[in-house]
């Protein structure tokens, strides 16, 4: 188990930290929000990220990536979380490319993965259908019409869905509405007739979309993995997604915490820094303890994927539940400790708080993952 970074990983983390600080600071994110940017992320920054190897961090060298693996991607996501950098890292690299890598045949992998690594295309996972993450409860159907599938249904909260070039769609080809079996993954190109994409604006000013399918014809060549066994791929994809979001939250939490501690030292009331009051100092110390636990959990979860351990699912749920909860704690406390100024749009803590809640709801909230953790452990 690697709970300490290697030299190579430390270098990657430092490169990422410097990059996001200089090229994608919070100010950039504000600008995207305030100008109501139609893409929702900065394309030139995304290109630079690809050039630095961030887009191909999980992709093998054979397909144009850098092959750094999950720990590498986690380190990049953590640094992105510190500056609220908006990019297709989650939709395309963490989730989309992973699905293709795990489930795709040679042709699909050759076609898609190099374009992800070079930053040319955006992928989006079209999974959710309700207000809560429920990966097997799929009502979207795919009917086999002699070699061509016809898709019907509606997907919501599709991250980066409004700018995606290709969707990875979870549809039902068999079984009943909440069954794990009978799910199939399809690669569907944007622009396919019958496909309707509507951008959704979320509280964190990030991108999501509603995707509607009305008799969308998809050739059987576009099936990802085997028919009816999509959940086998999906589970692994989602677990990596959960761990990746937890890594992003670790960065977000660390940033809010550091800014809060700085404020406790600087802001004076009653003639002294407010951090000198034990009521605040002890709460800061408690948060520090929680964050230390977060760091261990995220690192171990990433290692579990990298080492193909058999406890990836448990670690994914542990990481996602803990990081969602601590992100809520730290953004709430961070705001409270900033007082009235924390309530202003001018300060960043509110932006982090909004992102923290959307990230917490992505790929299952803390309730979902506590329940899953217990179920997996058999109690």
């Amino acid at each position, binding site marked *: 188990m690697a709970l300490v970074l290697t030299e190579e990983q430390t270098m990657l983390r430092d490169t990422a930290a410097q990059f996001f600080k200089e090229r994608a600071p919070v100010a950039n994110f504000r600008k995207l929000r305030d100008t109501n940017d139609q893409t929702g992320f900065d394309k030139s920054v995304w290109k630079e990220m690809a050039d630095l190897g961030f887009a191909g961090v999980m992709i093998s060298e054979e397909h144009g990536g850098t092959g750094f693996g999950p720990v590498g991607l986690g380190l990049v996501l953590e640094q992105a979380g510190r500056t609220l950098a908006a990019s297709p890292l989650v939709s395309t690299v963490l989730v989309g490319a992973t699905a293709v890598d795990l489930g795709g045949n040679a042709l699909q992998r050759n076609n898609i993965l190099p374009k992800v690594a070079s930053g040319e295309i955006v992928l989006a996972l079209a999974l959710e259908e309700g207000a809560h993450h429920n990966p097997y409860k799929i009502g979207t159907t795919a009917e086999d019409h002699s070699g061509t599938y016809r898709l019907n249904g509606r997907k919501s909260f599709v991250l980066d869905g409004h700018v995606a070039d290709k969707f990875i769609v979870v549809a039902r080809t068999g079984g009943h509405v909440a069954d794990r079996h009978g799910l199939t993954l399809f690669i569907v190109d944007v622009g396919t007739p019958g496909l309707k994409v509507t951008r959704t604006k979320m509280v964190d000013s990030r991108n999501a979309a509603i995707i509607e399918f009305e008799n969308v014809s998809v050739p059987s060549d576009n099936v990802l993995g085997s028919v009816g066994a999509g959940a086998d791929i999906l589970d692994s994809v989602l677990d990596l997604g959960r761990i990746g979001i937890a890594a992003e939250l670790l960065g977000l939490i660390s940033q809010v915490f550091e800014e809060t501690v700085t404020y406790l030292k600087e802001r004076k009331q009653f003639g002294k820094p407010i951090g000198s009051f034990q009521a605040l100092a002890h709460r800061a110390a408690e948060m520090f303890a929680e964050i230390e636990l977060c760091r261990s959990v995220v690192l171990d979860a990433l290692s579990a994927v990298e080492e193909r351990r058999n406890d990836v699912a448990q670690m994914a749920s542990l990481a996602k539940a803990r990081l969602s909860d601590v992100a809520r704690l730290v953004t709430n406390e961070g705001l409270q400790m900033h007082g009235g100024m924390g309530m202003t749009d001018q300060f960043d803590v509110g932006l982090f708080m909004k992102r923290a809640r959307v990230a917490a709801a992505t790929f299952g909230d803390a309730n979902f993952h506590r*329940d899953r953790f217990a179920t997996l452990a058999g109690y």
Partner: protein
Amino acid sequence: MEALEKFRQETREWLEANCPPSIRTPMPEDESPWGGRNPKWKNPESKLWMEQMASRGWTAPTWPKAYGGGGLTKEENLVLMQELRRINARPALMSFGIWMLGPALLQYANEEQKLEHLPKIVRGEIRWCQGYSEPGAGSDLAGLQTKCEDKGDHYLVNGQKIWTSYANYADWIFCLVRTDTSKKHEGISFLLIDMANGGVETRPITMISGASPFCETFLTDVKVPKGNLVGELNKGWTIAKALLQHEREMISGMGLGNASAGSSFASLEQAAKDYVGEVDGKIANAGLREHLTRQLMDGKAFALTMQRSMEEAKAGHGPGAASSIFKYYGTELNKRRYELLLEIAGTQALGWEGDSFSAEELSIPRAWLRSKGNSIEGGTTEVQLNVVAKRVLGLPIE
């Protein structure tokens, strides 16, 4: 008792005759009746309603008639409130003058000041805002620095206030100013300032919810007549404390969920069933169900405590120790309520705009963000807990 029933009958008839039809429907925020020198009357019936109510002094029902108030007893006022609620009447006038300044003037102002200001408040002619906090004086309010110098025939005020609610729409501001720099609490005075007389500039602050209900207010060489000092020089802190008490009581009521009146999420348990589903009548998600139950039990216990305190007061006992926890507990409860609502409605509670969210759903993130200020404004949770620890428990903290 008979007299009270007669009053009820008369009130009911008068309201029936004078409350316009549109006033008996839920009030959109942009029809809030704030009055003032430059009132915005989107709905002309709002203006009519305010004037009718003010003509009887019923915008400030319990204030003495001599100052334009309704002169009602507590019991009569209760009847009036019941009758207004019976027809779902909107408020006739929303006013910091009525809620905050008026009670302070009644207690501390001289006769001339009461006659000058109170009737205009009752009639909605002047809109007031509160100039208390400063960038360097938040929790440490008594550390305020806005300078007020005696220039013989007038005062000269210089300084900056922050978190002045709706200052950009207000006509007058009631301010805490420093009149003695050698003392802290004993160097503060309470001053009324006409914002139209020059030197007052307001700048709205954009909050995390996107709204701008607060301003920064800059006071530069503002000349104020000496007659605008309320109470004695350097005794303003007493008035400030009394006023803060009113404000805290107002904010603590939010914990009961009344703040979201008109929202279909008044029932959290129904929302949970709708968004999460149910199995045999039980909310399908055990973790969520437990959080929800805890919230509803705490809410019930808090409501009972407020009720107990009210009944004790009615029975002639002074405010009990329980009242000191209201602001703290009510605001923390309200914040938890909105966190829970996010948990319940999932990604549907996280939308900012667009057709895929209902109007109720879009109101959640804004109200959630707004609720975060409850434990900061009007005395932070930390300040409230200090008050309890020091004054109620007698703990020897600094």
